[in-house]
């Protein structure tokens, strides 16, 4: 494939993994967030060549066979999902956040997710969900 093919297009069009969403194509909204070598990255700004030798995790890859990731469970339980289009990116940003800061305050959660835009929720239930998931993972 061309080395300048956008990673988001590889995921969505070539690999049929449409869980990763495009909201702006310019790195502003965070909807395209994936994990590359475990760290959150914006797939709309990455090119194929940048994936050489690296591992990619998308939203389709964080649940295990019989269980959701605790963040996914918490998002469902706490009503953090409305239209859902921002959610894959939001969840992966939260995964990254909790890896770096396993016990964040609500303000730290807000700071960690400030690069993910949501137009539906007003963010409160997203913060509730991340807080609950952090507690669950920690225990």
């Amino acid at each position: 494939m061309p080395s300048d093919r956008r990673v988001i297009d590889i995921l969505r069009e070539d690999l049929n993994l449409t869980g990763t969403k495009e909201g702006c194509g310019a790195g502003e909204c965070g909807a395209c967030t994936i994990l590359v070598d475990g760290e959150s990255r914006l797939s709309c700004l990455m090119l194929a060549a940048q994936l050489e030798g690296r591992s990619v995790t998308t939203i389709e890859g964080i649940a295990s066979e019989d269980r959701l990731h605790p963040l996914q469970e918490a998002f469902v339980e706490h009503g953090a999902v409305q239209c859902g289009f921002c959610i894959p990116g939001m969840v992966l940003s939260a995964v990254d956040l909790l890896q770096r800061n396993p016990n964040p305050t609500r303000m730290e959660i807000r700071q960690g997710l400030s690069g993910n835009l949501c137009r539906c929720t007003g963010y409160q239930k997203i913060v509730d969900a991340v807080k609950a998931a952090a507690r669950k993972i920690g225990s």
Partner: protein
Amino acid sequence: MLVKSDIFRIGHPVPRADALSKVTGQEKYAADYYSPNFVWAAVKRAGVPHARLKSIAVEAARKLPGVLSVLTHKDLPGSNRQGIIFKDQPVLVDAKIRHCGDAIVLVLAEDKPTLNKALLLINFDYEPLPAIFDPEKALEERAPLVHENNPDGNLLQHISVKVGDVKEAFLECTTIIEGSFEVPFQEHAYLETEAGWAYLAEDGRLVIVASTQTPFRDRFEIASALGLNIDKIRVIAPYLGGAFGGKDGLTVQSLLGLAALNSQGRPVKMWWDREESFLAGVKRLPARMYYRLGAKADGTLHALDCRLYFDTGPYAHLSSEIMALAMEHAGGPYRIPHTSIKGWCAYTNNPPGGPFRGFGVPQVTAAMEQMIDMLAAKLKMDPLEIRRQNAVRQGDRNCVGVTLVNSTGALDCLETLAAHPLWQERKKWKESAGSFKRRGVGLACMAHGSGYGPIIPDEANAKIELTDEGKMRIFCGVSDMGQGNASTCLQIAGDILGQDADSMELILPDTDRSLPSGSASASRCTYTYGNALIRAAQAFKQRLFERASTLLMIPTSDDLSLIPGRIRHLPSGKEISLSQLAQLMDPPERTCTHYYRAPVAQEKLELHSSSKVFGLPHILFSYAAHLTYLEVDELTGEIEIKTYLSVSDCGRVINPQIYEQQIQGGIAQGLGYALSEDFIVEEGKGLTPDLSTYIIPTTLDVPEMVSIPVEIDEPTGPFGLKGIGEISINGPLPAVANALADACGIRVSRSPFTPERVLSAMKEKAPHEVKP
């Protein structure tokens, strides 16, 4: 099973049925369709606000390898006109360009890079025309005409409505306040931009999968624009990635249809990127509002005169209806015996105006709620007291003269707010501001009428099927754009039919399978469809019981009970599974439908208009009272909202989680409208073309919100509920404006209240007090 299944109960915070598939990335939106041999479609847009189209040069684009087709207005089989009430918008421009986003040429190509290259190779020759960008100026005699054949010039609609005698009444007022307010465009900025997928099925029918609030109505518009028979069009509406009114009507649909007719049998995909969405999508109508409010010495409101100017841009869309709803709410939720409310909606060459959550009510609430505070200040009255004194009760008339016959909780909302610690402790909070910070609190009280008004039927058809596997399949008729009405359908039907998530299925709107149920708009989604669904479910239950009682050889169906997956006779314990029952019923018997039409206001108003008025008056209103805690930085003009309280009367709450979702989301969008969403247009061109220049709230911009329901039963509503989708977006702008005035005595007449505007206003008021 990844998520625990629950019995559906009304009143319970049942997690949304769609949350699982969305949180795992499995749910497919209209933007998520691909196939091995699909084709991309996109349009070349005008880029100039007003011009006569002379010729189009497409040959270079047509010759580009990888381009399948380049289409102009000449290739359009039908009327080439679309629109909801007035069909005034070309699918592809034939004669005249009326705004920068007008579509000129449609290109089909193998891949995105080729598509983009082709678009760049297209040129068109045009004669620029003098343009008009101001709705008041557009109504002047020599203004350039946007639609030359409109006998009213640039006037789309003028409505004038009155109650009593406002001239006399002002003479009887001891205190009169005047104010003028200007509110800008607001961009929906849904995360999923306009998107769709289309193909010709084997039987030749056109199938369109679109991110649309209006799958049923879309067919009519597409049919007439493309010259197709309506039976030949199928529209499917998956979950939308947000809409808020911006997908109420055609966006990609007619372009996709045209593309699919020219794609040599291959499926077509169209997905507007963010810049195109900003350029071509409809926006909240900007407005200029002139208010005059008079009261008696004791604070009783007595007279209201307002003149409202709305800018619809190049096309009518639903702007006349938006203005009508605004006018009905211009006086707020208050008793005002004498009113004169006049509105003018004008065509301009600005970006196109259209529906956006609130539909005219945020605009007028911004004005009226500030007027109330200004009046309270002049009368030296407490702003909560003056609202309590004048709030409407059931049986009063609203400002256009309609009697409020249904539940009216304005006062209950205000009283609940008054008793809340946030109101009680406001003075203490204000007094503890830090250095260079000023603190204030602000109120807003609002109403929101739901439904379409008296002419267009607000109706729905519910459909339930018992599948041959014994599952209850609910055919949702109204698009779910994130508000959760599809889940609510399951909850309502599940409650009545005693089923759980495992024994139910949901079909999203599909014009081949669901039944016409109107648009996802006007805060009517759960009210109207829910009422149809309850009746369908109850009728179906009876039918199933009758069949079951025969099969179980029980004399009556009285002691039968529906439980997940089965029907049980409680006294004897005999039971039949729903899958067995389904096998013993004829297919037509296994489907139950029911129609519902919402009631309308019967009263005649003292109303004059330049053309037929749809969308006024209404008969069912939700109410709310909001309180915000605001802190402003004297050095930077930056506003921070510390807390936000909303108390809402939306009838009974059937799902507390979804209730909060709606209220919180509306507040966030309202705060954006108040503080940061400055959609700048100059000479018809948008200067804030993307999310880096048009700032919507992030996690750091929305405070913790408290949202309290006042549960007054609305007897006409499904399980007692009223509309909730829009009410909360009406409050933040005026609440913030009032809090700013409370904090430092300034009002900024033009929103949003950016730091620059706030700082200017502070300097203007007290140039010596504000440090440089």
